[in-house]
């Protein structure tokens, strides 16, 4: 770790399978307080499975520690209440509901109302002004970029201590991707710890303090982005 702070998240010997296929094999990763850690790798490397295993959405063996305490396995409710929030691949917004309702659900743990809710709501709308214009609109009728903003905004409504993002740039135009990642970078500089899964490695490495490269369910490299000088060098980490 970079020494930015204490470890906020650690996994130890994390394993997961899809039937006969080992999706994760003995994954040991760590994220320090205030770090933005990228998880890179090709399709099928196990990046999404890693995030879903941390959250408890899949059956996984091994240990996941949050601030030194082991998280209960296969219990996403408890993980969310601990302050770890996932922005899933494909956004996972609730299409039939309005933008306002999606944001309200983000604060589900605190009941979706009250002064603390209002504070978070104002913060999210300040970060994503486009959402403020569309509060009454059904989320499913928004563009992909707006849906991604909503997905991130909804996650921020939970006031997470650790934000996990699974390929936020998927299917988005470069301009929109840049806008969203810039917001993420700003949130990280303000102290939010982030794990960012991305296939677009150069974008992720611009923001990340550290990066893990995965392939075939394993961590193949732990990388300092500042030391990567070229695409060829990055490709070497992918290819092993």
């Amino acid at each position, binding site marked *: 770790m970079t020494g930015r702070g204490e470890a906020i998240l650690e996994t130890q010997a994390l394993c997961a*399978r899809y039937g006969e296929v080992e999706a994760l094999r003995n994954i040991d990763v760590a994220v320090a307080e205030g770090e933005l850690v990228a998880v890179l790798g090709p399709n099928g490397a196990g990046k999404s*499975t890693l995030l879903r295993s941390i959250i408890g959405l899949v059956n996984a063996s091994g240990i996941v520690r949050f601030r030194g305490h082991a998280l209960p396995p296969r219990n996403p409710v408890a993980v969310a209440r601990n302050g770890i929030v996932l922005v899933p691949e494909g956004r*996972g917004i609730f299409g*039939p509901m309005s933008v306002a309702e999606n944001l309200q659900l983000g604060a589900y743990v605190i009941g979706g109302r009250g002064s603390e809710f209002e504070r978070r709501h104002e913060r999210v709308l300040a970060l994503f002004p486009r959402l403020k214009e569309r509060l009454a609109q059904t989320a499913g009728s928004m563009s992909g970029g707006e849906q991604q903003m909503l997905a991130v905004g909804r996650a921020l409504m939970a006031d997470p201590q650790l934000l996990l993002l699974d390929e936020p740039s998927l299917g988005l135009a470069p301009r929109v991707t840049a806008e969203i990642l810039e917001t993420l970078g700003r949130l990280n500089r303000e102290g939010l710890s982030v794990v960012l899964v991305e296939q677009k490695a150069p974008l992720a490495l611009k923001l990340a303090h550290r990066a893990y490269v995965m392939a075939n369910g394993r961590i193949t490299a732990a990388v300092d982005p500042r030391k990567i000088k070229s695409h060829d060098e990055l490709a070497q980490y992918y290819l092993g």
Partner: protein
Amino acid sequence: MARAALGYLPALLAAALVVYAIAAGGYFVALAGFALIYAVFVSGLNIFMGYAGQASFGQNAFAAIGGYTSAVLTTAYDVAPLPALAAGVAGAIVCAVLIGYLTLRLKGHYLAMATLAIGLIVYEITVQWQSVTNGYAGISGIPPLRIAGFEAASDRAQLVLLSALVALCMGSAWLIRHSRFGRALVALSGSEEAARALGIDVARYKLAAFVVSAVYAAVAGSLFVHVVGFVSPEVFGMNMVILGFTMLYVGGIGTITGPLVGAIVINLLPEAVRGLKDYQDLVYGAALILILIYAPGGLAALGWPKRTRPARADAAAKLEPASVEP
């Protein structure tokens, strides 16, 4: 403002038809009465299917529990209608908790088939348990509903009482939809994984929606027997399931007023085409198809701008989990 008013137009028209029935009396009162009872039944179905996005072909089971409990307690044990209704609701809740705990682990078609089986099982019980239900001969002499000293002895009085109950029903459905509970139900219909990731206990909410739906069904069942004064197994058979589904989709699944609109339209439509004699079934079927083609969100959703149309069970974004084992 005008757009919002347009959105409520189908519901206002449905309410106007009920008011007309009260004023006109006669056969329309009976039609409207059945429509209002079904509005209660379909409201419950809407909570489980429309809000929570689950499938149930067995809500008639809980209507049977409510109906037969009311019938037996009021005729054999001289219990007053309201406590008998409450007992029927309590019985439906217990059954819904037990059945839901076992079956709600299933999803999609499997859940639909399991709930269908429950409906068939309860139907068979009402046929076979003759010492209590009197089998196909049924139970007659069920007294009219009496609430706070007001007895709904005449057809018009029944319709007024039913109207008040349906208004209560719609109001409670609105409150549910706009509560934290309701938002969580709609969330899990969109994506169970995304809902879990937000801290929503999906299993608990599915069970709660199933139980709430059963309560509405039990109330509808009890209302039916008190309005008609008679009950037999066929009342709560497959026909109720088919009618309920039709009303839900024609009215607008996931909307607040859809159950009322659908119940009124489906009850009145056969009467509107009765004059066509040999062609009435054909025209009825064609009318249903046309409604579903040109109002796919249901009649109650027609007036809403597409971008702000009330939530429906079909989600724009789904996150399907892969099955994983360590």
